[in-house]
């Protein structure tokens, strides 16, 4: 039945062609039958219609040069379209025409050359099929030996193997060399900051007013009707000169009002809501997309990126999807003027998990 590695060589002898000998090598577990078919050699050549019929040949020739001339036409048209279809007057429609007609010209120019050349090759060029003889990629035995000899001589002359102390010290030096280069990359981020420190704080602080995103208008508790949801940023964020997006990426909040009876605050969080109004971080605890699809009647939040779902009535715990942690809650209250304010910063880092978080 099956041959193993070693019996293959006997079977290979069945093939007598000398080229096979040149390609010698273990056949492994290949099964080479004794009475397999032999290659019948090339099929008789089949002439093309253009080889036999001069009329067809003429027609093919006409087709090819017509295509090339069409290509020139396309190029000319593309230039004309550049001028005929300018983008003027803040008109989006003009952009579309400009794009389309320049595109048509270029397409015709390219396809004309392409189809013309292929048709020329297929129907008019007369070369017979070429037959290359393959030789083993490894070269002849003499070449291989020659290469081995070069390495041996080089080793002997340099003493690479013999003088192992020199060699090893060189290897050690080469290994040490890239380390300074790696250290230089510390400069990619500011030297005076530490990531864990930055990730642990946001702009929110005791007394910061909740304001609308993006206008920055403060929100009165009385404006938040039951069932509504607001996109919120901390007061002052819209006016930041530096680091506005960085702060927003941590401080964005979603504000919702439910019936107070529908909320089941976790122990210690009973005072974090105000009259059914709750504020949660908008940054997904999975990989950080904004979780901002609010389904009013189920009180579920859905992240549009990876479909994690959070239950607002239940401390924004995860009910489905790849996220693990609930969205962090921002403790809120109301100031003397009736505006919503934060009681403090978030009590845990917002956004995606990271190694040093615990």
């Amino acid at each position, binding site marked *: 039945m099956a041959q*193993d590695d070693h019996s293959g060589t006997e079977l290979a002898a069945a093939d007598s062609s000398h080229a096979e000998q040149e390609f010698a090598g273990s056949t492994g577990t290949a099964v080479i039958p004794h009475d397999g078919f032999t*290659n019948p050699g090339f099929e008789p050549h089949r002439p093309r219609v253009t080889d036999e019929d001069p009329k067809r040949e003429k027609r093919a020739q006409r087709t090819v040069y017509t295509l090339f001339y069409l290509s020139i036409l396309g190029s000319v048209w593309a230039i004309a379209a550049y001028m005929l279809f300018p*983008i003027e007057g803040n008109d989006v429609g003009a952009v579309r025409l400009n*794009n389309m007609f*320049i595109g*048509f010209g270029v397409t015709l120019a390219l396809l004309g050359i392409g189809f013309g050349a292929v048709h020329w090759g297929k129907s008019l060029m007369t070369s017979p099929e070429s037959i290359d003889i393959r030789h083993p990629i490894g070269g002849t035995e003499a070449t291989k030996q020659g290469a081995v000899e070069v390495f041996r001589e080089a080793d002997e002359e340099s003493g690479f193997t013999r003088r192992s102390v020199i060699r090893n010290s060189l290897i050690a030096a080469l290994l040490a060399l890239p380390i300074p280069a790696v250290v230089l990359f510390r400069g990619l981020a500011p030297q005076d900051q530490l990531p864990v420190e930055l990730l642990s704080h946001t702009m929110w602080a005791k007394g910061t007013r909740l304001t609308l995103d993006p206008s920055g208008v403060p929100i009165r508790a009385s404006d938040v009707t039951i069932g509504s949801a607001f996109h919120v940023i901390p007061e002052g964020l819209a006016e930041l000169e530096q680091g506005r997006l960085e702060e927003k990426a941590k401080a964005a909040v979603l504000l919702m009002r439910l019936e107070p009876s529908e909320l089941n605050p976790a122990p210690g969080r009973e005072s974090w809501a105000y009259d059914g109004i709750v504020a949660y971080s908008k940054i997904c605890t999975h990989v950080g997309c904004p979780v901002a699809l609010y389904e009013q009647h189920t009180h579920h939040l859905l992240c549009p990126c990876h479909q994690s779902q959070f239950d607002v009535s239940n401390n924004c715990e995860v009910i*489905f999807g*790849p996220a693990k942690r609930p969205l962090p809650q921002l403790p809120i209250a109301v100031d003397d003027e009736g505006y919503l304010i934060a009681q403090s910063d978030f009590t845990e880092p917002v956004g995606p*998990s990271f190694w040093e978080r*615990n």
Partner: protein
Amino acid sequence: MTTAPTRPSAPAKRTFTAAASDYLNDRTGLAVAIKGLGRKAFPDHWSFLLGEVALFSFVLVLLSGTFLTFFFQASQAEVHYDGSYVPLKGVEMSVAMASTLDISFDIRGGLFIRQMHHWAALLFVAAIGLHMLRVFFTGAFRKPREINWVFGFTLFVLAMAEGFTGYSLPDDLLSGNGLRIIDGMVKGMPVIGTWTSFLLFGGEFPGTAIVGRLYTLHILLLPALVVALVAIHVGYVFIHKHTQFAGPGRQPTNSVGPPILPIYAAKAGGFMFIIFGVISLIAALFTINPIWNYGPYDPSPVSAGTQPDWYIGFADGALRLIPPGWEFVWLDRTWSFNILVPLIGIGLFLVLVVSYPFIEAWVKGDKREHHIADRPRNAPTRTAIGAAGVTFYAGLWAAASSDILATHFSLTMEGVIHALQAVVIIGPFIAYFLAKRVCIALEKKDREIVLHGYESGRIVKLPGGEFIEVHQPLDEFDRWRLVSYESYAPLMLRPNARGKITFGQQLRAGFSRWFFEDRIAPVTRGELEASHSTHHEVTQSEQH
């Protein structure tokens, strides 16, 4: 190839071409290469064009990308947009976004070139993927081409990296969300994650450094690597000579096809223009990445139904399929398995892809060079493994559109995710089984045809009243196409010189059994003669 002998003395009347080529050759010595390669044979098959599609779309990516660099500004400094697109007038955005809008709305033909660049890039990755599948399913990765498979695989990864860095440059809402996801994934990696993200973004996400950094990668480092690897990859196609399918006259020791000059040059050169032309037509007609609809990046707005470029889909899908709760605090550190499992899973998948040629070579123990491409059916286990891999990838890929699947087909989000989890885990096994059975059935059909000929459709009534269908025997050329493959047998274990069977050998035997135990051998002359003389069904012998 022999080296070119020195030219005989020039004829009395020299053409311009002869003079010019003489001039060049005397200074470059190119004649040796032209004589050696000019008539080199290039085997023909439609599937061999897939690699060319990849190459040519890359050329177009380079050309169109160079044009874009003259206008694009990779800066995240804030400006108020003041271009032609009215709905965004006065909106605060980065210079990168504003210059991309200028390319689209204020430079004639700019949108066309930008769309060509994006479409060509999408086609580039797609063509590489299909080309890899062609090479895989025809066994064109076998000795001596294993290392070129590794180069090609590296190109696939680099192409995806090129795509992602390019996608991130316009600094619009979609690309910013893509970077946000990358940031979240990087942060989820143990030990190095937090600092890697911090260094990558030059501080906190999103910072003002990332677009400039990605731009350097996108237009300098990655293209240089891709160009170098493409040169090596294609260079090795020349050195190895292209594989060919079995056919009359085609030997493992020859390479048959139209010569490079002139036919292959005309066809491949023309094909390049056709590829350019098709991409150009798509760019003229179909909008891609309309960043003006998305607006500038802001960490807060909603963006439902967003999709990454297609080739990143499998990674995004892997993230979506993780069940809830795969994150733990242990030893006072956060272990985000909801990030790690997709990363490791995709990593393992890619490692399997790149190392498959070496695994198969080890199982077979076949040290010969292989230049005849397999028909997929004649390597049933490999084809089945490929089908399983494709199913796994497709499952992850579909998962990247889980929300769109759910909304378009009015399904629940949970139902779609659970179904796709099943596709990713069970699907590969089903695909494996189906593909293997189909391959074996096709091999059996091939044997039938060789032994009994084609069904001619002609029914004949015999004198005894019996009806038979006349079977038309194959000619020797068609027969050769069906019988000229080798099958492999399971490895028979034998003790080594020290009388032991090593664990390595046992493992190899196990793999070998898995690969080859239900092989179908090609028809031999003896079997064909037996079938002719007896007119009886010859049982499919697997014995020799």
